C-alpha cells in the first residue's frame, strides 16, 4: 500500500505541536466555550424550563449535559473547516511546488491533511468531554464500563466521519483559492447556517418547516444526534422535550455523514486534479 499520505500527516502534526500558542488556544478555546456559555446558558435554560412538568418515567438531563454535545460538534465543525488552510499557505509560500512536483499522488495530499485534521478534532473532543464531566455534565449515566467504552468509540466514529467531510470541503476550497481571507469569508458564510439550523444548542422541534427541513439534512444535526445518543442515551428529556432515538435512526445519521464525506472527497479530488501550482 502506498502510505504517502502519512508524510503529509507527519508534517502537519509536526507543525501543530510546534506552534505552542496555536496548540494551546485550540485546546483551551472549546473548554472556555463550555465553561462560560455552558454555565451561563444552563442557568437560564434550567430556570426557564423548571416550570414545565417533567414527563413521568423518562430520565431527565440538565442543559449543560444537553449542550455539551453541541459544543463538541461545533468545535469539530470549526476545526475541520479551517483544517485545509495549511494548503492555502503552502500554495502561497511556494511550498506546494515541492509536493506537486513529487511522485506523491494528489489524493494522498487530501488524505494526509484530512487525517491530521481528524486527529486534532479527536484531541479536542476528548478534552471537551473531560472538561464537561468536570463541570458536572452527566455523561454516560447508568452505563456499564463496556457501554461507556463502546459509546466513546461511537462518538469518535461520528466525530471522525463528520470531520473528514468538512476537511475534504476545506481542502477543496483552499486549493481553489488565492488568499486566506477568501477562505475565512467562505467559512463564515458556511458556519452560520450550518450552526444555527441545527440542534446543537436548542431543539429543532419548534423551527418553522423550512428550517426544519434544512436541519434534517444538515450534517451537524446528525453529528449532534449521534453524540447525544452515545453520551446520554436513547430515551431522555431535556428542556421539556422528550428525545428518543432508535439504533436505526443513529445508523441512518451515520450513513448520511458517510455520504457527505464521500461527496466532499469527490469534490476535493476534482479541485485537486484541476489545480496548477507554479
Amino acid at each position, binding site marked *: 500500500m502506498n502510505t504517502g499520505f502519512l508524510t503529509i500527516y507527519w508534517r502537519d502534526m509536526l507543525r501543530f505541536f510546534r506552534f505552542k500558542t496555536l496548540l494551546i488556544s485550540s485546546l483551551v478555546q472549546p473548554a472556555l466555550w463550555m465553561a462560560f456559555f455552558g454555565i451561563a446558558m444552563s442557568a437560564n435554560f434550567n430556570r426557564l424550563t423548571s416550570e414545565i412538568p417533567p414527563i413521568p418515567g423518562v430520565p431527565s438531563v440538565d442543559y449543560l449535559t444537553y449542550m455539551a454535545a453541541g459544543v463538541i460538534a461545533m468545535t469539530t465543525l470549526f476545526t475541520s473547516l479551517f483544517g485545509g488552510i495549511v494548503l492555502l499557505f503552502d500554495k502561497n509560500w511556494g511550498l506546494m511546488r515541492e509536493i*506537486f*512536483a513529487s511522485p506523491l499522488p494528489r489524493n494522498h495530499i487530501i488524505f494526509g491533511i484530512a487525517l491530521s485534521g481528524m486527529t486534532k478534532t479527536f484531541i479536542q473532543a476528548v478534552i471537551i468531554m473531560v472538561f464537561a464531566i468536570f463541570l458536572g455534565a452527566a455523561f454516560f449515566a447508568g452505563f456499564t464500563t463496556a457501554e461507556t467504552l463502546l459509546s466513546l468509540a461511537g462518538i469518535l466514529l461520528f466525530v471522525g466521519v463528520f470531520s473528514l467531510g468538512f476537511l475534504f470541503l476545506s481542502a477543496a476550497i483552499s486549493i481553489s483559492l488565492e488568499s486566506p481571507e477568501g477562505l475565512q469569508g467562505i467559512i463564515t458564510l458556511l458556519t452560520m447556517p450550518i450552526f444555527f439550523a441545527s440542534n446543537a444548542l436548542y431543539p429543532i422541534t419548534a423551527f418553522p418547516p423550512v428550517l426544519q427541513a434544512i436541519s434534517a439534512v444538515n450534517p451537524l444535526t446528525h453529528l449532534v444526534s449521534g453524540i447525544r445518543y452515545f453520551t446520554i442515551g436513547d430515551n431522555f428529556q431535556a428542556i421539556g422535550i422528550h428525545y428518543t432515538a432508535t439504533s436505526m435512526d443513529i445508523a441512518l445519521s451515520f450513513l448520511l455523514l458517510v455520504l457527505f464525506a464521500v461527496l466532499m472527497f469527490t469534490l476535493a479530488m476534482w479541485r485537486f486534479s484541476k489545480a496548477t501550482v*507554479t
Partner: protein
Amino acid sequence: MRAGSILTRTIIEVEGLYHHYGDIAAVDGISFSVEEGEIFSFLGPNGAGKSTAINVLITLLQIQQGTATVAGYDVGKDPQQVRNSIGIVFQDVTLDRDMTCGEILEFHGRLYRMPSVERKQRIDELLSLVELDAKRDVRTKHLSGGMKRRLEIARGLMTRPKVLFLDEPTIGLDPQTRMRMWDYIKAVNDEGATIFLTTHYMDEADHLSDRISIIDHGRIITTGTPYGLKNTLGEDLIYLETADLPGTLVTLSAMGEVKELREKSRGIVAMLTGDGTKILPQIIENLADKGIRVSAVNLKKPSMDDVFLHFTGRELRDEGAEKPSTAVARAGRR
C-alpha cells in the same frame, strides 16, 4: 563535464516546445537537447520564459505543444517517471520556515518514498556536502540566504537524481556566496548529475556552463559553449571614438582583420579575427593616414555581456552608451 564524444547520451530532449498563458506566449517554440553529465544553461533576462520552460520539464505545468523527454521519459505521458528521475531547486525559496534543516530533508525523502535507513544516511551525507551539519536542528527561518539555497540544493539531491534543475540558483545572493554556490554546483556535477540551470547572470552562465542557450522573448537565440559564443564575436573587441565616425567605418571595414563592426552612440566597436594588441596600432595608423584622429580607445576580450548584447541586440537601443567598456574609454578622454 561534457565528454564531447559520440558516446554521450541525450538526457533532455525538447522539440518545438510552446507554452502560453492566455495571450502571452511565454515559451514560443524552443528546441534543444542536453547531454548526460553536462551543465547546460538558459541565459536570459527576466520574463524570457526560463521558469515556464523549467516548469514544463519538471511536470508542474501540463505540456501544451511540442514534445519533451527527460531522462528518457515523456513529460506528458510519463510524468511520474520523470518526477522520480529529477531533483529541483525552484526560483524562489520554498522552505517551510518552521521546519529544521533535518526535517526538510526528511520530509523530502519521505515524499519520494526513500527507505528510512537510506534516508538517514543520505541526510548525513548531504548536510556535510553543503556544510550545514551544524544547522541540522535549526529552523530554516534562522538561516542566511546562502544557507537556505544550499539546503535547497541538498534537498534537490536527496533522491540522487539523474538531472538537477536549478532555476536561478544564486538570485539575490552576495558575490562571495554566489561563488561558493558555484563550487557546490560544480561538485554536484562532478559526482555525475546532469545540471540544467537558468540564470540572468552572464558571469554565472559563463563560469558554470558547458553549453549555454541564450533565450529572449520565449525563443532560443543561439546555443554554444561559452568559448564558442564569445568567439563568434571575434578574438578581441576594440572600441573607438573618433571625430569622423563614417570615415572610420569605411577605413575599418576595408581591413581584413576586422570581422564585424557595430555603431554605438558615440563610437564604434570592431570585432577582430586576431590578436588585438597587434591589430590596434595598425588601425590607428590606417586612420591617421586618412587624417582621422582617435580620441578614445579600449581593447578587451569579448565577455558574456558582449555576447548577450550582440545576440539580443539590446545595446543598440538603450544600454550601449552605458556599458562599462565604453565608460572606461570616455573617462580616458576627459
